[in-house]
């Protein structure tokens, strides 16, 4: 129930492609209440789709994060822009070349 898996995608280099990868994971129990609350809100509203920014926020080459968690109903996944991801989750990922 407790593991959050996170993958960074996009950016100028197109992370998530064949070579540029960025993964991490974190136990929910290790997250502070504030981060858990923020994360729960993101999951409750944005299941399965990219969180939409206001129309005039035209970020280009920004990173998005694919975040998955296990629930009793199965694995839930959301994709959200970097600015909405709690810093504690961003801190657990590592960029690499595969």
């Amino acid at each position: 129930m407790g593991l959050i898996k996170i993958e960074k995608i996009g950016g100028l280099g197109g992370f998530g492609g064949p070579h540029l990868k960025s993964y991490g994971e974190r136990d929910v129990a290790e997250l502070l209440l504030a981060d858990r609350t923020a994360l729960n809100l993101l999951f409750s509203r944005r299941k399965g789709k990219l969180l939409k920014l206001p129309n005039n926020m035209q970020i280009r080459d920004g990173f998005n994060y694919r975040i998955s968690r296990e629930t009793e109903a199965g694995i839930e996944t959301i994709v959200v822009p970097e600015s909405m991801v709690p810093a504690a989750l961003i801190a657990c990922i590592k960029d690499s070349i595969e």
Partner: protein
Amino acid sequence: MSLQTAHNHLCQCSIVPRDVLKRFSEDIKLTEKERKCFSDTALIDGELRKLRAQAGKLTNIINTLSLAPVVIAGTPAITVANCNHSQTLPGTPISTPGSSTDLTIKRAYDETKAVAQFYKNVFGRNSIDNAGMTLGSSVHYGTNYNNAFWNGMRMAYGDGDGNIFIDFTQSTDVICHELTHGVTQHTLQLAYSNEAGGLNESLSDVFGSMFRQWRLDQMVNQADWLIGHDIMGPGATARHFTCLRDMANPGAVHCLAPQPSHFSEYKPGMDPHYSSGIANFAFYKIAMAIGGKSWEKAGQIWYKAMVDFKPSPNMKMKSFANRTRKLTASMYPANAALRTAVDAGWLAVGL
């Protein structure tokens, strides 16, 4: 992360859901000072959103009415701010970035100024909005940050992690790539997904590569057509990666982000940094067939296709290809070889 850092993070972030802020501002587990910070942020955030919405409406009205903003003579002001490794934009303004001893700051200033000059001298454009908009850059964004981006209003550059990537201001094509996202935002207004997203990314690569060639005064056959060659770190070069993308050979093994080069390989939902390979390769083929310098003819056609029409957020690649075909005929009516080159270039990528 401590609670203090958590709330600092939320207080600094520009896009935190308002209900999260509201909930924390009423959370009795937090101190009074922390609750006040969240309620203040919610207030500022609300006002900022209104301000952005107004700015967005104004841009849309101007574009709808096809009213060009009053063109200010001269070149735009160039500003640079230092994020000092935070992810808060814009960062601390630098008073004289052109004479800074911090080479990243100086480079961001010098190369942005050169991009403004490139757009002015080669295409007659006065800055991103063709009305002298100040060009703002933020450097030293984040820690070991492997990216550069356009946030809708300014450019931001990370320093790289020193392994995969180095300082993102090192590649002149990257600087023009980001700035061109601004030009696209003020002209074609292409979306950032599906075919329009691929075109959006391709325009940034095409103008980025042209700018790098212009800086080096290169003929098309002297250029390497690489994107991001100068930001490759030791870990990437040790693995024989020489670039992010190669416009001359989008699927090459030396690309960290190899791309499709034919429309038959396009799939809806593809990251625009991959689908852009199709239009990138067409531009390369066309520029090489024409010869000379890329910005003299091919670049002029691409520029007109970008700025001389109404916004087309969901433009298809085929429509863009056909637009350049028509423009070639109208701009260079006596040049049959040019028409053949443009047609053949697009046909080679299946468009």
